[in-house]
């Protein structure tokens, strides 16, 4: 018996052999439906394996500030990468300089409801009395939460809707609040709305893009990386035309071309 246990323990502890080259990417939670196929294609093209950690951009920023061993950071906004650059912890390659993050994608904000409810997503719905609870991501830190507040202010609905807010930790939780039927509608990302689950369960309405500041997502190289060349390769791959076009499928639009 004991011998078996020891064997099992050894099997568990035996670390898998590391591939020749591996980069570690810290990626915003909204990229979870987007990055896996891109990472797979990158491996096919270069043989470099990218290991991705998906979390809230704010949390990843804190981790990088405290020395987390990431090579690249793909944020859901530009503020956090800029903050890391300002602290000397990261380098941007945007606009051909080391001083600004690469804008690798732009996000879009949508109003989402379940199909089986009586509510149809539209600007009118936001004025509808039947809307009792509106889920939004935390506007203090979640880029889509900030955009949601900006859009409601621009539409002149913020004060009326404020008592109806239920605040989610991030965009996927905002979607959960609505998908589970606990909130009537949610302001979420087009990326979330296009996932298989939410496509099956609900409908969305794209909030007019001129009613909120663009949700530009920035990428930076973490300065203490040991994998500078491989990490830069991934950025170049991410900014290549075919990959940028692919982003549309997942509800993101291409970023800004890097000269």
């Amino acid at each position, binding site marked *: 018996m004991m011998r078996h246990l020891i064997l099992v323990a050894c099997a568990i502890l035996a670390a898998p052999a590391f591939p020749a080259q591996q980069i570690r990417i810290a990626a915003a939670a909204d990229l979870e439906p987007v990055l896996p196929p891109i990472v797979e294609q990158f491996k096919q093209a270069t043989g470099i394996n990218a290991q991705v950690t998906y979390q*809230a951009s*704010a*949390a990843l920023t*804190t981790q990088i500030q405290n020395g987390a061993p990431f090579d690249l950071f793909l944020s859901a906004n530009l503020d956090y990468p800029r903050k890391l650059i300002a602290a000397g912890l990261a380098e941007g390659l945007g606009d051909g300089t080391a001083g600004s993050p690469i804008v690798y994608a732009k996000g879009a904000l949508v109003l989402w409801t379940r199909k089986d409810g009586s509510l149809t997503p539209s600007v009118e719905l936001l004025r509808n009395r039947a809307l009792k*609870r509106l*889920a939004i991501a*935390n506007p*203090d*830190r979640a880029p889509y939460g900030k955009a949601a507040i900006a859009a409601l202010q621009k539409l002149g609905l913020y004060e009326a809707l404020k008592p109806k*807010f*239920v*605040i*989610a*930790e991030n965009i996927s*939780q905002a979607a*959960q*609040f609505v998908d*589970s*039927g*606990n*909130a009537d509608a949610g302001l979420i990302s087009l990326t979330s709305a296009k996932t298989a689950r939410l496509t099956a369960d609900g409908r969305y309405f794209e909030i007019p893009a001129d009613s909120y500041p663009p949700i530009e997502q920035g990428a930076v190289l973490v300065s203490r990386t040991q994998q500078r060349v491989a990490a830069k390769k991934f950025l170049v791959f991410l900014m290549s035309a075919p990959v940028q076009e692919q982003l549309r499928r997942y509800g993101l639009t291409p970023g800004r071309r890097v000269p």
Partner: protein
Amino acid sequence: MDWQAFFLTLRLAGLTTAILLVIAIPLSALLVLGRSRWLAVVEALAALPLVLPPTVLGFFLLVMLGPRTAFGRGIIAVLGHPLAFSFSGLVVGSVIYSLPFAVQPIVAGFSAVEPNLVDAARLLGAGPERLVRTLLVPLAKRSIIAAAVLTFLHTVGEFGVVLMLGGDIPGATRTLSIVLYNQVENFDYAAAYRTAALLLGLSVLALIAIYTTANPRGDFRRSRRA
């Protein structure tokens, strides 16, 4: 300092502790005195909230208590609103989340009671209710106090369930642990230190107060001499 969140947290922890003592004392007595094989299953179920990550537990509750299940619709019919995003929803979540912290110490305390005493009481005709009230509870008083303290503190520090079920509504579901988390996530470290200091300071004081009153030192020596 967010005093509204502070008092909400105390109210949630107090109410959860009261409800759990009412549930845990009879449940623990049943587990200790009962003879059915099925009680092992009940005991296992009562320990399960320890296994699930709190955020996952919160997510299950969000779905189960929502309008998409018959159970959730029943609740909504009674209350007029879903349990999620409300104080009562947090109470339900906290009771489930802290159940093992109430049950385990009380079961241990009841189990430690001399079996001869239980047999004697039974021979003298004490029914289960009287057995618990006049024998088990007085003899396991310390375990019950420990259960109450643990339940209270565990609920004060509860975070994952509240995060998943609460929706961060001031005065209804914004507890101190959510405030603290928000401060950390928003890089407002100075405020986070203050909130954490308040939480820790008060907890230490409360614990010292409880342990000095519940465990008079020298008890053990006195009972030896007797």
